[in-house]
């Protein structure tokens, strides 16, 4: 109930500020561009195979949808810090955090409310890309199941980055600092899996296991792998747990 109150308030302020529209517009533009590029590649490949006469297997899911999902997951890394940066930083700057913390509600309800609002905005943002996906159904017959798995993967990956971003937002009073720090962490979690491309040691594998993007690969293929689901769900838990600790420590340090 209190979670819902907080969540509603956060969503209201997202959609009353330029943040929600900025994020959605930016996402629509970039994902639309990626969609266009993927389609052009696909069309060229099909023309080529009809000219040469070699019948290559063509798949919309494999050649259009999968690269789009990979691209969207990378765009998420850039946009998620913009969604989370104000969650707590702004409340700390204006002092409204005192209102929340001295109200008879639990810290967990505050945190869940804010994270769920961020998730909702992220989901709406992903919804913009459904327009591109819908046109595929108009002109082709892609399989919807891998597509659903892909969206589930995007939500899980987004949820874990949003939880981390929420945590970072509790650490500062300055939205911009929270945004930049969140972006750096997202970027780091992305490039961690490059380790495994030039090294084959156990430590390199362990480090690249931590990469957020690496776990998205199976989802983009339409494969539900329990290992990756566990990774995302536990990352969400860790992010929200750190947020709770950080919110509590505000009072001990303040």
């Amino acid at each position, binding site marked *: 109930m*209190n979670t819902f*109150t907080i969540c509603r308030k956060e969503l209201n302020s997202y959609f009353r500020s330029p943040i929600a529209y900025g994020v959605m517009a930016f996402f629509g533009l970039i994902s639309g561009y990626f969609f266009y590029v993927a389609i052009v590649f696909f069309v060229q490949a099909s023309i080529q195979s009809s000219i040469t006469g070699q019948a290559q297997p063509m798949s919309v899911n494999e050649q259009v949808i999968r690269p789009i999902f990979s691209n969207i997951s990378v765009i998420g890394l850039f946009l998620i810090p913009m969604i989370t940066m104000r969650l707590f930083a702004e409340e700390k700057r204006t*002092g409204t955090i*005192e*209102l929340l913390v*001295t109200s*008879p509600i639990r810290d967990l309800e505050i945190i869940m409310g804010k994270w769920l609002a961020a998730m909702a905005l992220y989901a709406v943002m992903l919804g913009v890309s459904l327009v591109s996906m819908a046109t595929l159904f108009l002109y082709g017959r892609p399989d919807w199941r891998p597509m659903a798995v892909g969206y589930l993967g995007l939500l899980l990956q987004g949820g874990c980055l949003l939880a981390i971003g929420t945590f970072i937002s509790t650490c500062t009073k300055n939205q911009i600092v929270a945004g930049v720090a969140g972006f750096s962490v997202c970027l780091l979690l992305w490039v961690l899996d490059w380790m495994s491309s030039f090294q084959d040691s156990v430590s390199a594998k362990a480090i690249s296991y931590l990469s957020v993007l690496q776990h998205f690969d199976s989802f983009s293929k339409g494969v539900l792998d329990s290992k990756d689901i566990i990774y995302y769900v536990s990352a969400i838990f860790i992010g929200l747990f750190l947020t709770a600790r950080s919110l509590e420590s505000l009072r001990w340090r303040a």
Partner: protein
Amino acid sequence: MIKVEGLTKRYARHVAVDNISFEVQKGQIVGFLGPNGAGKTTTMRVLTCFLPPTSGTAQVAGFDVLEQPMEVKKRIGYLPESPPLYPEMEVIEYLEFVGRLKGVPKENLGRRIDEVMEKCSIGDVRMDLISRLSKGYRQRVGLAQAILHNPDVLILDEPTSGLDPQQIIETRDLIKGLAGDHTIILSTHILPEVEQTCEQVIIIARGKVVATDSVENLTSRLRGAESVAVEVAPRDGMPLSAEQVQQRLERVSGVSRVAARESRDGRLSFTVESQQGQHIRPELARAVVEAGWNLNDLHAVGLSLEEIFLELTGAPKEDIAAAHATMQVPAGEMS
């Protein structure tokens, strides 16, 4: 209603609140008075469960802030120094949000909001965005927020800071009107505020309580002595030095101290303090006139809370400890 015992709050570098104890009875308005940085806000934050105490205990309505914070929070309305407002919300929307946070039952919420808007006279801005409100309105919306769930205890941190004189008077009247239903602690560094609104005063300086007493008792403490403002001007353009006048005034019987204040256009002002129980004004007037000077002004200056306050808080540390010891005795029912 509020019971604080041996409360200490230590930050990494310094002690903000050092072993303070006090008690507030139900329905009282208590002024928390002290210079900036004395520990007023810290104490209030402990009472509202925002900060945990380093040691000592604080109880609100019988509930400990550390052990049953939820129960304490339900019974407290808190207005921090800067009102916790969301600029992007409309006033009514903000109050609905706070009402839900504070657990006001849904069926009562609308009526309750109308009541507090009436009480705080913010009904005319109910649909306005908070970011567009003037400072005075913001403060009143903050106050409305604090009383919305009809809490037993109201904690107001500098409720009149940054307001213009008219708004200050309105806010004070509003706070006075709230007494009785609520137990109120308000902090301020403005003395007349305490004299005008509060029944009890707790003076705090450098993290320690230096005095807890009723406003009347504190002022009567120094009532025996009299302080008189005198303004003297030379007659017929004869030159007149401040030392000359001062020496003459000091010779008046019953005078304990003469301090020169200022001289402007040849007019000299002094503050003269009497010994205990001496009425010196007639003698002073006679002395000035007999000396052949003009007596422009002569009036008694009541020893205000201000002077007691300065005496208690401006003194060096060991003096404060001494003051603490002497003030605790007449505190009587408070400590």
